[in-house]
């Protein structure tokens, strides 16, 4: 655990930023890759060494940052949904419904899809919790954050190693 404290800190930050709308629209897709990069930088500061960061370490730190971000992001999202009984999905549902209605699909399929939407919306508005929504964001957050985090870790390790190279050359 202590070894990955920087990943924990950066992952927590990314998880928080994922639920802050203004920060989300500003940093867009770069929140998690930057968090992985920061985790590596923090680790380098905590354990100063002249050795280059191995790609395995970069990928591992990125993956763990992503998993922490998924954990905190999901927890905050579910907690806020539970308290406010509202979230992004509920807000965008009318738009989604309009899109499904305009889509050239069979009546049976349309009704089925709209029923699923309606079920999720009603659960969230009534109880602040929907099993389908919870399942969906747990899977989504875990898979996407770990992939993006690992990519961020790999790219971050490359950037840090190049900075070290430049410093050695001067």
């Amino acid at each position, binding site marked *: 655990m202590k070894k990955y404290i920087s990943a924990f800190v950066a992952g927590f930050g990314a998880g928080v930023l*994922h639920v802050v*709308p203004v920060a*989300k*629209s*500003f940093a*867009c*897709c770069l929140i*998690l890759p930057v968090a992985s990069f920061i985790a590596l930088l923090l680790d380098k500061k905590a354990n100063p060494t002249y050795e280059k960061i*191995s*790609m*395995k370490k*970069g*990928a591992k730190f990125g993956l763990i940052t992503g998993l922490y971000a998924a954990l905190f992001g999901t927890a905050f999202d579910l907690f806020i949904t539970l308290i406010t009984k509202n979230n*992004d*999905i509920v807000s*965008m549902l009318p*738009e*989604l419904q309009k*899109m*499904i209605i305009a*889509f*050239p*699909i*069979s009546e049976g*399929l349309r009704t*089925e*899809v709209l029923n*699923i*939407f309606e079920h*999720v919306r009603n659960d969230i508005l009534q109880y602040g919790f929907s099993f389908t929504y919870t399942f*969906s*964001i747990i899977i*989504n*957050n875990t898979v*996407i*954050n770990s992939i*993006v985090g690992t*990519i961020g870790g*790999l*790219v971050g*390790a*490359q*950037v840090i190693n*190049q*900075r070290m190279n*430049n410093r050695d050359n001067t």
Partner: protein
Amino acid sequence: MKLRFRLILFIALLFWAAGIFFECIALPFNPLIIGYPFVYNTFSHVCHQDPDKLINLTCGSTLVCARCTGIYLGLLFNSTINIFVVLKIKTSLKLLALCTVPMALDVLFVVINIYPYSKAVAFTTGLLFGSILFLYLYDGLNNLIVEIQNR
């Protein structure tokens, strides 16, 4: 990197890029529409999805903003080239800065209202950034594979 790894990388990026155009892809494959909320939610993790910043096509709109579409298509574009010709551009911090600065400046100028948001500018600067990002990603994966094989 061996061709099979380059192909795997290309297929992964192609799959990801296809998701951006899910609305268009779901049009001829109707049953796919049932997965729309899930795919939409997936991309909400990597983009703010501001409706004013999405690229509107005749078959629907993209699931990420113009800038993110540019970044991901930049990655895919270089990955496609990389299947046929192994890219041997040496990555450097100067090159990374050179390709990141236009995107960062565009974000800054839009935020401080020097000029209004333009999808074309956002897409182009994103494309430039995505292209250079691929080189870093490719180098990183290449080194990772070498490290694993040398273990």
